[in-house]
């Protein structure tokens, strides 16, 4: 069915003229009063004073504590479970096994394939085989130890290439190949036939953890109407509700999901609240009591989603002058035990499809061929993590670009200049980029701010003992704004009260990115009120319209458009009212900064409050609703051709490093990152995204990897799973270019994920430039750098 729908769409180039809403959204030429300004975050005061309540800070008096008994095996059959002893422990209220799940015993963000409680089989060490609810957390933990489970261990598989062999242990009934997706553009063999140089390389990236600082907490509270309230830090309240309803066996209108401020998410809190929410809710429904379920750091390392590990085999062909002519890639994408957000969600959603379509990079290549395998293994599962498949493939194509440049004797910036996307370029999926393509601007601006031309000539030893060698590197990247499926649609409600204050209802969540400041900025701008007069309502599926998840760098742009539409709808009645009161036509009336006046005679004015008060008194409409979805995505399932996402952000990073050629240690000395994210609605918040994203990319490049061995994780604590500290992140210069997206609010595009994508390859390229060693399998920790130098035949001119 989905395939047929896909076929019908074929390749389509998004035509701006066909999108009615674009005209509506086109920014007027007047200067912006609230949007576009670096305003302090509206929730800052609560954060710096410690008053902001995160889920773990709520009063849990009267709550039961839920705990999960997890599998000790990465793959095993469950022969028997005996819960008698656990049930008898004083303070234990319920011990549940698979048969106790009232509805569908499966959950999952994209497709439900993970049991709420495993009944017959476990597929990774994060699988739950029993749930306990007890009066205290301590008793719940004691009860877990009293549950007797008899397993029959099965052979397990941990490599995606091995997983799809015929003799591999079958993890799911339908086999281990979850998805094979393809890109077919042009004639790749004919392309290679024209090439003067052909290079083949394999790159590999490990599993990365989100390492958000706030551990997961979920509360499930049974409601008198037989429904369930679930609260907690989460990026996708509606997706959580969508899973809770069938698991509990009740309709969606009896499930209420409320989002609580997150202490970091980065994609991880898209899956984990579904997982914990379903489990806590089953316990709450069974016991009739509220249940709190929280994960300790070690538990969340085992149980929650991770960044997909990938193996990327690439062959690229170029002419002598650096012009790219053909690209062939095989992408081995390891899904782990469950589907999460890995597989394709038609027409163009899902992490795997995103990685596949980006694999050839932000380069115009006439002939592209990609086979992308997504395979189940018995490892923790891959979910959404900042960049959603893009950081992985950028590690490959950005290093390859440097390797190719070296082969051709070209400067790494020149080869990018030659092939990088420009206005009118066609991507690997045949999408013609017809607006807001600032990639080359970011490259030129970065080269200038960093002084690439000057610094690239200075690579060399910085000490007379020749132990430390300096080098520079560049990384370029692109990232979508949106998720490429129907649930990109965003709803917003704007309620204007009689006293002139405004309530903004949106389902977009706050995880630290600043949405709760940026969205009110857009609302205030459009209504012409002061920012402090807008209050954003905490997302609650009973109150706010469906907004899709807070992912895909989509919030500001997609929700921003919905808010503008909602504000304009309610403003129509405000304008009518003001026109009656001021006795001037609506076309002459301006709403700015809480004042309403005649443009031709500014002395004729009213306060916003006078207008709203009169509106209320005369029964005029005081609610506006906006609903915005981007132009429909398309992707042919056989050829991968189409327009999967409606607009992209672009960025170039340059970094200077010093490598100790004797120890392999890398020090970052300087960093410049330049962005085309369209119009920045809050430049200070955008800078914050950039700086944090770069730090996460530094971690990916140099130190982060979930250490897996036989399906177990060896680094379960933040002592062993290292993330960058203040000592690891250099001073950096974030630069936001003036950009404009015709389909975004005031010209905005996404930034949240774009920022971390080029960081790792820029660093890897700088390391190679400094010491001659190329690290093709991350992370580039001292050992890997040391070995790479040795492989290259020792440090240069030693």
């Amino acid at each position: 069915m989905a395939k047929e729908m896909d076929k019908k769409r074929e390749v389509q180039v998004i035509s701006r003229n066909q999108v009615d809403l674009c005209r509506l959204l086109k920014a007027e030429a007047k200067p912006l009063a609230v949007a576009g300004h670096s305003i302090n975050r509206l929730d800052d005061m609560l954060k710096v004073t410690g008053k902001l309540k995160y889920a773990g800070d709520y009063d849990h008096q009267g709550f039961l504590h839920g705990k999960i008994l997890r599998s000790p095996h990465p793959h095993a059959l469950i022969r028997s479970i005996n819960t008698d002893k656990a049930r008898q422990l004083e303070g234990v209220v319920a011990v549940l096994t698979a048969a106790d799940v009232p509805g569908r015993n499966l959950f999952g963000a994209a497709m439900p394939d993970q049991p709420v409680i495993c009944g017959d089989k476990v597929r990774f060490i994060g699988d739950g085989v029993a749930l306990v609810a007890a009066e205290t957390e301590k008793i719940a933990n004691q009860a877990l130890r009293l549950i007797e489970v008899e397993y029959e261990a099965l052979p397990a598989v941990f490599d995606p290439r091995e997983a799809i062999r015929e003799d591999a242990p079958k993890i799911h009934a339908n086999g281990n190949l979850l998805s094979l997706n393809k890109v077919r553009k042009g004639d790749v063999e004919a392309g290679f036939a024209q090439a003067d140089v052909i290079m083949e390389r394999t790159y590999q990236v490990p599993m990365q953890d989100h390492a958000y600082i706030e551990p997961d907490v979920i509360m499930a509270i049974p409601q008198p109407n037989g429904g369930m309230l679930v609260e907690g830090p989460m990026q996708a309240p509606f997706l959580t509700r969508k899973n809770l309803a069938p698991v509990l066996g009740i309709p969606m209108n009896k499930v209420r999901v409320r989002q609580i401020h997150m202490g970091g998410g980065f994609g991880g809190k898209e899956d984990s609240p579904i997982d914990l929410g379903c489990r806590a809710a089953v316990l709450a429904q069974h016991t009739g009591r509220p249940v709190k379920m929280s994960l300790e750091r070690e538990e969340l390392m085992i149980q929650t989603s991770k960044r997909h590990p990938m193996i990327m085999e690439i062959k690229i062909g170029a002419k002598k002058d650096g012009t790219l002519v053909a690209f062939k890639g095989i992408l081995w994408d390891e899904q782990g035990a469950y589907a999460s957000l890995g597989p394709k969600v038609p027409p163009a959603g899902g992490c795997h499809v995103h990685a596949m379509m980006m694999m050839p990079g932000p380069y115009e290549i006439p002939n592209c061929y990609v086979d992308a395998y997504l395979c189940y293994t018995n490892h923790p599962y891959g979910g959404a993590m900042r960049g959603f498949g893009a950081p992985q493939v950028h590690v490959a194509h950005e290093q390859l670009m440097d390797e190719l440049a070296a082969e051709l004797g070209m400067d790494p910036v020149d080869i990018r200049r030659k092939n990088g996307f420009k206005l009118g370029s066609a991507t690997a999926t045949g999408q013609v980029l017809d607006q807001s393509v600032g990639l080359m601007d970011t490259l030129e601006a970065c080269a200038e701010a960093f002084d690439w031309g000057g610094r690239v000539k200075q690579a060399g030893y910085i000490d007379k003992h020749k132990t430390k060698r300096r080098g520079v590197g560049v990384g370029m990247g692109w990232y979508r704004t949106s998720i490429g499926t129907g649930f990109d649609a965003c709803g917003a409600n704007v309620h204007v009260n009689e006293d002139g204050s405004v309530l903004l209802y949106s389902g977009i969540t706050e995880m630290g990115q600043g949405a709760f400041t940026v969205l009110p900025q857009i609302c205030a701008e459009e209504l012409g009120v002061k920012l402090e007069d807008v209050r954003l309502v905490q997302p609650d599926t009973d109150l706010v319209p469906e907004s899709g998840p807070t992912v895909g760098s989509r919030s500001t742009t997609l929700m921003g458009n919905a808010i503008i539409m909602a504000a304009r709808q309610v403003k129509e009645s405000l304008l009518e009212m003001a026109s009656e009161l001021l006795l001037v036509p609506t076309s002459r009336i301006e709403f700015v900064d809480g004042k309403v006046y005649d443009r031709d005679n500014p002395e004729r004015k009213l306060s916003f409050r006078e207008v709203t008060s009169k509106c209320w008194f005369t029964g005029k409409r005081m609610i506006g609703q906006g609903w915005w979805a981007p132009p429909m995505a398309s992707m042919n399932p056989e050829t991968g051709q189409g327009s999967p996402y409606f607009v992209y952000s672009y960025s170039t990073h340059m970094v200077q490093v010093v490598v100790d050629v004797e120890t392999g240690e890398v020090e970052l000395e300087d960093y410049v990152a330049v962005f085309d994210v369209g119009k920045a609605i809050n430049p200070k918040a955008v800078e914050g995204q950039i700086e944090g994203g770069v730090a996460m990319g530094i971690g990916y490049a140099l130190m982060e990897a979930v250490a897996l061995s036989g399906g177990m994780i060896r680094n379960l604590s933040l002592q062993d799973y290292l993330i960058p500290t203040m000592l690891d992140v250099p001073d950096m210069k974030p630069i936001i270019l003036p950009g404009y997206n015709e389909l975004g609010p005031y010209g905005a595009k996404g930034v949240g994920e774009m920022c971390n994508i080029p960081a790792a390859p820029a660093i890897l390229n700088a390391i190679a430039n400094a010491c001659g060693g190329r690290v093709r399998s991350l992370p580039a920790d001292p050992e890997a750098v040391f070995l790479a130098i040795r492989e290259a035949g020792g440090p240069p001119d030693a």
Partner: protein
Amino acid sequence: MGDMKLSFKVNGKGVEISPPPGSVLADVLREDLGLTGTKVGCREGECGACTVLLDGVPVNSCLLPARKVAGREVTTIEGLEKQDGTLDRLQQSFMDAGASQCGFCTPGMILTAKALLDKNPNPDEGEIRHALSGVLCRCTGYRKVMQAVLELGRRGESGS
């Protein structure tokens, strides 16, 4: 349970409580005293979110046995705001610099920075990096945290 009395000062006020034996300071602050501004991120002394000041010195309250604070003075994030609502200059500086994103590490970060500035009113970048390296932040990349602290040092130097 809870028969051992424990007296200490929190944010200038004396308290006497009877926490369960083996309690750590973070749990006493959060559960017995309702001071939930102190966050717990890892319970293993690695992330620094739970940092409070013990007699002015930053400590990981998730590891510190509660009995060790008997007779001593603990400062939590709730103690920085004056009774009239005036913020500590670090709190204002964090807001103006944009040094807080998700905010979960912010209390620990601000208290650690306060201990540094109390000892060294005009620290350089290296000193700030060294002092704050025990508090993990996954959101900010630390640059605006650095700016928030540096700015206060500079202001301190110019006497304003």
